[in-house]
């Protein structure tokens, strides 16, 4: 093993284990102990990764407060390796981590809120896409409709929760000024995360809408998707919904 590699491994061990001087890292003390010097790097490393989580999970941060958020973040950072020089990818496992985090168990909705925030984060950085040109559909022979596989905008994500996470999300927005209580018995919700212009929006969906878009996103054919929507919501307005999804650039493409 090269001495450079050994030094880097020793440094990393010292940062994450907290144990002094991993693998015999030799530092010049010069009036200040090596441990104090390493502490600065520990603070920098944990600080930058905590800040990355805070930026991705602002609602979780608001719900639990600064002190508890930092405590959870520290636990997450210890267990979950950052694997990229691009911090955008860091924190994908945070929702699952919260499901198991003992002190967060009395906030059963927290993992779902976190998962919703991760989808918002992904949506923010997803590819752009042109709206669907309706004449492309109009030019198709009607008999080909059944097998069309519609595609959602790359920034669209679906999420169903058994908690009222839309309401929770709303009261935690910085510009929210209304009543700050949420009745947990409001029950679950089906949500669409989308990017409209440059903003991330959440749209509650009916059972039929959610089933239809879910079928599209799992690449089912149009006939199958319609059947799923009607089963989820008898009397569901298929053509009206599809038209709205195209107009709002939620459905942006199809494969024949």
């Amino acid at each position, binding site marked *: 093993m090269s001495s450079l590699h050994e030094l880097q491994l020793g440094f990393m061990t010292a940062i994450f284990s907290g144990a002094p001087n991993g693998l015999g890292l030799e*530092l010049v003390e010069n009036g200040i102990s090596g441990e104090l010097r390493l502490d600065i790097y520990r603070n920098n490393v944990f600080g930058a990764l905590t800040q990355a989580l805070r930026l991705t999970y602002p609602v979780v941060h608001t719900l639990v407060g600064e002190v508890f958020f930092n405590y959870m973040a520290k636990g997450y950072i210890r267990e979950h390796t950052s694997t990229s020089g691009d911090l955008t990818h860091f924190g994908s496992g945070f929702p699952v981590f919260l499901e198991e985090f003992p002190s967060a168990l009395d906030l059963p909705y927290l993992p779902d809120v976190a998962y919703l925030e991760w989808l918002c984060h992904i949506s923010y950085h997803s590819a752009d896409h042109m709206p669907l040109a309706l004449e492309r559909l109009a030019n198709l022979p009607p008999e080909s409709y059944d097998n069309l596989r519609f595609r959602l905008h790359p920034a669209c994500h679906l999420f169903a929760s058994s908690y009222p996470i839309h309401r929770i999300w709303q009261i935690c927005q910085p510009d929210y000024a209304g009543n700050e209580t949420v009745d947990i018995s409001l029950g679950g919700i089906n949500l669409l995360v989308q990017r409209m212009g440059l903003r991330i929006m959440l749209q509650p969906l009916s059972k039929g809408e959610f089933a239809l878009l879910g079928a599209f996103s799992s690449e089912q054919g149009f006939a199958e998707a319609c059947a799923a929507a009607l089963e989820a919501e008898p009397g569901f307005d298929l053509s009206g919904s599809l038209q709205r999804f195209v107009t709002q650039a939620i459905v942006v493409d199809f494969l024949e």
Partner: protein
Amino acid sequence: MLEVTSMACAIPAKAGVGLRAQHYRELLDTLPVVGWLEAHSENYFGLGGPPLHFLEQLRFHYPLSLHGVGLSLGSTDPLNFDHLGKLKSLIKRFEPALVSEHLVWSSVAGRFLNDLLPLPYTEEALRHVCDRIAITQEFLGRQILIENVSSYLQFKASDIPEWEFLAEVYRRSGCGILLDVNNIYVNSVNHDFDPLNYLRAIPRDAVQEIHLAGFDHYNNILIDTHGKPVYSEVWNLYRQTVQRFGKVPTLIEWDTDIPALSILLKEAHKADAILGERHVLAA
């Protein structure tokens, strides 16, 4: 028909500011007089959305430099060609006049610390990092600038002074130097050396960009937080830097407690005033 021209244009020997998301809208609405913008490359590695939208809009109005923080050039892990590929696409799309990275490592054994960690200044590390810079430049098809960093410790293994190490990286790898004057000052206090010796060790034609920022104090150690105005000691050292290296594009960096754009621009105008002074280049 529209004439298609290249957006690439040289960075003027003026002050620029670091591009931060908080200022996207105001920059675009007011188009303030500032020489150029510098963006953190990794913030634009996504496939779409607001960051790329704003960078594209702003690119029409300002010369651009791309500054990387995550390539981990000094790491003993294999170079990350996925990361380099994204950087290359970004360069192709936005045609920055300058592309820079740090003289650091930030990952080992597949784990990223996402911090700018100092190398031991040894012949082994020198060879390693020069090889990696050469591969990077070859892959990108262009020269990159390498920036000196602040550090809060020194390895006993180091047997080359930091300034000689940096100068040697320049001579061996064919890169340019992005000289961070604040980092030189911070290290001169933390490791007790004369910052003017540092400046004198750097070849005159190596420096293509300068960084300025503010630091914080922690137990008699200066920490490069990029969260304060530039200190007067650093302005003085900057003046001496300009005397030695001439008028070089200079960036005001501010990354924590990011202030109003007007404060950032005021700092840039201070740098412009120093760049505008008549300097007699010292022999």
